[in-house]
């Protein structure tokens, strides 16, 4: 008698091997973190990494949620950089960024190119890591382009920074806590 097809479960799927599954991010598109009242031109204090304690100028929030900041490079050695807003203290000091155009900088700007990845290869693949002449030329133009963008953004910024007395020195100095500072009492 044709009845409803009954599907019978054989049982759970038991993996035969110890498969190592790489962490797969369920969310394909990064959700930009909600920006705590941080405004373009605001001076931020970086809390982690090579530039910890440095005061940098915030330019904009990128699509990935990270904050785009710059030293400016001439003032404190911090280049155009992506920074996680969790590792940042926003201060109430602001620099005028009206003349600054950071529109062409986005997450793609910071992606590692194949030539860069190749350069890091060692051992068996080292030969593969050597760049061809055209790759080297391409790298050169890429870096030149980056220097140009850095310069164009920084020049406008430095002009604005120079207007406030001591701002240049402020951005060049690092933030630190002394013996008597009470961080919970500090107003930023």
């Amino acid at each position, binding site marked *: 008698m044709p009845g409803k097809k009954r599907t019978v479960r054989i049982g759970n799927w038991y993996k035969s091997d110890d498969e190592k599954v790489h962490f797969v991010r369920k969310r394909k598109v990064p959700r930009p973190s909600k920006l705590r009242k941080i405004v373009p031109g605001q001076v931020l*204090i970086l809390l982690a990494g090579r530039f910890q304690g440095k*005061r940098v100028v915030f330019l904009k929030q990128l699509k990935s949620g990270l904050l785009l900041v710059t030293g400016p490079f001439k003032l404190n050695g911090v280049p155009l950089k992506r920074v996680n807003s969790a590792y940042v203290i926003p*201060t109430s000091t602001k620099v005028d960024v009206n003349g600054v155009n950071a529109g062409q900088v986005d997450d793609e700007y910071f992606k590692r190119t194949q030539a860069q990845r190749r350069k890091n290869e060692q051992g068996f693949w080292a030969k593969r890591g050597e760049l061809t002449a055209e790759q080297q030329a391409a790298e050169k133009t890429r870096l030149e382009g980056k220097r140009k963008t850095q310069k164009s953004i920084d020049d406008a910024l430095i002009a604005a920074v120079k207007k406030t007395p001591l701002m240049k020195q402020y951005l060049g100095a690092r933030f630190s806590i002394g013996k008597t500072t009470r961080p919970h009492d500090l107003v930023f």
Partner: protein
Amino acid sequence: MVLTKFVEVGRVVKINYGPQEGRLATIVEILNDKRVLIDGPTTGVQRQVIPIRRLTLTKFNLKGATRGARTGVITKAIKKSDPFAQYAQTLAAKKVAKKVLRAKLNDFDRFRVMILRKRRSALLSTQLKTLKKSTGGKAQAQAKGGNKKK
């Protein structure tokens, strides 16, 4: 020591304790040996009964304050001669104001204060050096400072 500051009508007082801590007011009426009626219409102190224990007497008096005067009368008297402004000139008041200002400084301000203090002490030390030179090392250094510090 002669006693000069009395609990009397018109005495300007500073509140030491409670929600109004730090504010000034005038004594309007004395109720008993422990409580007074105070009022501070220009300083944000509501007319209230307060134990004397919670007050510090200042050396200023509000002229024209009569016993049990209503708030309006007090306000008029203050308009005529403001003892609160006089109190703000005293060293004690200035110290408090400085402390309040320092607490409000933001990161950039703190940096500027640091730089200015360094400049000031550099000025002082050069003054001191020239004084020492000119009087053969026996001078009392009374170098006056340069920049204003917050």
